[in-house]
């Protein structure tokens, strides 16, 4: 039985024990701890809460002083974010009002703000870019990371210590330091403002993380598992797929989430190395600040919407993230 298994069991006993069986003192301490946890969580959630509410406020409510806690929620911010609109002239506006019932709810919201929807906004394309770039680079980084982590973990790679350090060093320089040389290189190579360029860049950055993280997880998997598979008649690759992979799922999930979060949120490179075709939301949300008055609701809606995919992925993988690495068959 591993140490991890042991601690998780202990913990579950502490929390799952019926309250009346816990001593008074322990109950008080538990209550204080819970209280403090809630306070800290609340403090940390205030900006998120603020963003979430702002996303559903009308333009006026968003800038109201003092700030409104109670307000009439509207999807105006989202519509502003996702749709391209034009301001309606007085005459046309009245005409539209007249056939309000025929309009879709989206157009009605736009109409209330004195505008008409004329197409999908740029932001939608940017979101799609993010999905392609973050998704592509995450898949690549985890896949390549897994293979090289396995090699570093299991084989005598000559100079593996130096190589691993070199891989890690890829992440040591802050983005601002390397953007200019990369910018110049990408210009030459025609990778500027391309999906493939951004995928490559994020993959390089994430590889250092994924190789190191995954190597740690694979090191934890006893070699005997693969060796057993080898003598049981499998090739090295089959053993990797059937024995190592299933036992590395926890690590793969954790690495995927970390890589995805980095690639999804990356700002500095995206700002410098993309302009339109491959631009992602992080540099374009602030750009909204400039255009004819600050559309706080749209900005908040953009930020909120941008959070959601990462939250979903993390949530989907939580089973693997939370589950301790348990290797039942080997006592250590």
């Amino acid at each position, binding site marked *: 039985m591993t140490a991890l298994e042991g601690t998780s069991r202990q913990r579950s006993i502490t929390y799952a024990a019926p309250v009346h069986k816990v001593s008074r003192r322990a109950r008080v301490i538990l209550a204080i701890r819970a209280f403090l946890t809630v306070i800290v969580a609340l403090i940390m959630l205030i900006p998120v809460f603020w963003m979430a509410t702002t996303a559903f406020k009308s333009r006026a409510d968003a800038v109201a002083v003092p700030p409104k806690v109670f307000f009439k929620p509207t999807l105006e911010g989202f519509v502003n974010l996702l749709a391209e609109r034009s301001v309606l002239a007085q005459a046309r506006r009245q005409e539209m009002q007249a056939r309000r019932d025929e309009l879709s709810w989206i157009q009605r919201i736009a109409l209330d703000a004195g505008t008409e929807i004329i197409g999908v906004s740029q932001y939608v394309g940017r979101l799609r870019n993010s999905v392609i770039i973050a998704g592509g680079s995450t898949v690549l980084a985890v896949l390549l990371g897994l293979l090289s982590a396995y090699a570093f973990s299991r084989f005598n790679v000559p100079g593996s210590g130096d190589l691993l350090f070199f891989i890690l060093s890829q992440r040591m320089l802050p983005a601002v330091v390397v953007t200019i040389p990369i910018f110049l290189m990408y210009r030459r190579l025609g990778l500027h403002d391309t999906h493939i360029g951004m995928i490559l860049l994020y993959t390089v950055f994430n590889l250092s993380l994924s190789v190191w993280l995954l190597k740690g997880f694979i090191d934890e998997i006893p070699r005997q*598992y693969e060796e057993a598979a080898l*003598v049981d008649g499998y090739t090295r690759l*089959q053993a990797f797929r059937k024995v190592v992979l299933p*036992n590395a799922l926890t690590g793969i999930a954790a690495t995927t989430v970390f890589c995805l979060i980095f690639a999804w949120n990356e700002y500095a490179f995206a700002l410098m190395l993309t302009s339109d075709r491959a631009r992602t939301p992080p540099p374009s949300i602030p750009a909204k600040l400039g255009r004819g008055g600050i559309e706080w609701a749209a900005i908040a809606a953009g930020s909120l919407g941008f959070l959601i995919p990462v939250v979903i992925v993390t949530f989907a993988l939580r089973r693997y993230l939370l589950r301790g690495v348990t290797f039942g*068959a080997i006592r250590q």
Partner: protein
Amino acid sequence: MATIELRQVEKKFGDLHAVKPMDLTVHDGEFVVLLGPSGCGKTTTLRMISGLESVTGGQILIDGRDVTWAHPSERNIAFVFQFFALYPHMTAWQNIAFPLQSQGESRAAVKQRVAEVASLLRINHLLHLRPGALSGGDKQRVALARALVRHPAAFLMDEPIGALDADARETMRAEIKRLHLLEHATTVYVTHDQVEAMAMGDRIVVMSEALVQQIGTPAEVYHKPANLFVARFIGSPGMNLVTGHYANGVVHLSENSRYLLSPEWNQALQRELGGEGKVILGFRSEAGVIVEDGPLAAEVFTSDLHGAYNMLNLSLNDDLVHIRVPRGIRYPMGATVRFNIDAEMVRFFNPRTEAAITRRVR
């Protein structure tokens, strides 16, 4: 089943010799035990036979086929690991079926064969469980089932019961022996426990410091150790060893201890030592016989109760010798006892080469 032949097989890790060139033939259906203290190269030898470790010299043949460089999966051998190495993400059933699936057996055949070995090992009721939910003994049963399921040419077991607690160990030892007899399976079994080795092996390979010290039946390594290491390592306690001086058909052990040699031994020592010289006399604790006018004298150091017998610990010169005496007999500490050695069970070693001296010349 198959024969396994090692010819001058050797393993070096850089400058470290893990296994010095060794020769060994494991016959069809034989149970050979590799025995030796920690770090002597037992596991490495086993891993070379399985192909998990490449050799740095020599040849390995299975059934006459040179497999020195064959992939582990091509050798048709099964390996049982000390820590079981059951796949934790599979149930016991899946674990056992795994080697069959590599051979592309039909579903029905796999099912039937798994059921067969499961009932052989009496683990039918555990098949739906993951290894994490099994006790140590049951894990090892599943591991054995996984090894058996494919009818391999040979079994390699690396301290398969070393990780079990004492109770389960006894049971599993008997069970492995039974399986061996039932399946008539060529087996190479690694252990550092000499009692286990004596109990299980048809033959024992005693190793120390990367070198094979002796290959022989349990009786041979017990009664005719090839050198001082084997004499000390086998048996509990090990062989009594007393340094003396040989001259004129007599070995002087101390002032009042003179062991008179039989003509054969005299001849052998004469030849080996060239007239006279230092020699080490050895005998098993049960070969010592307390007799009033025995030729050897020693002082009682302590005596231990062993249930069926008493063990008398005597000091002779600077050496401690153990003699088995009947249960009732007690001696006060410091008393002098005289004893003789069963003439058939006395052994001699050359202190310079540490090798046993043999009686007859070829």
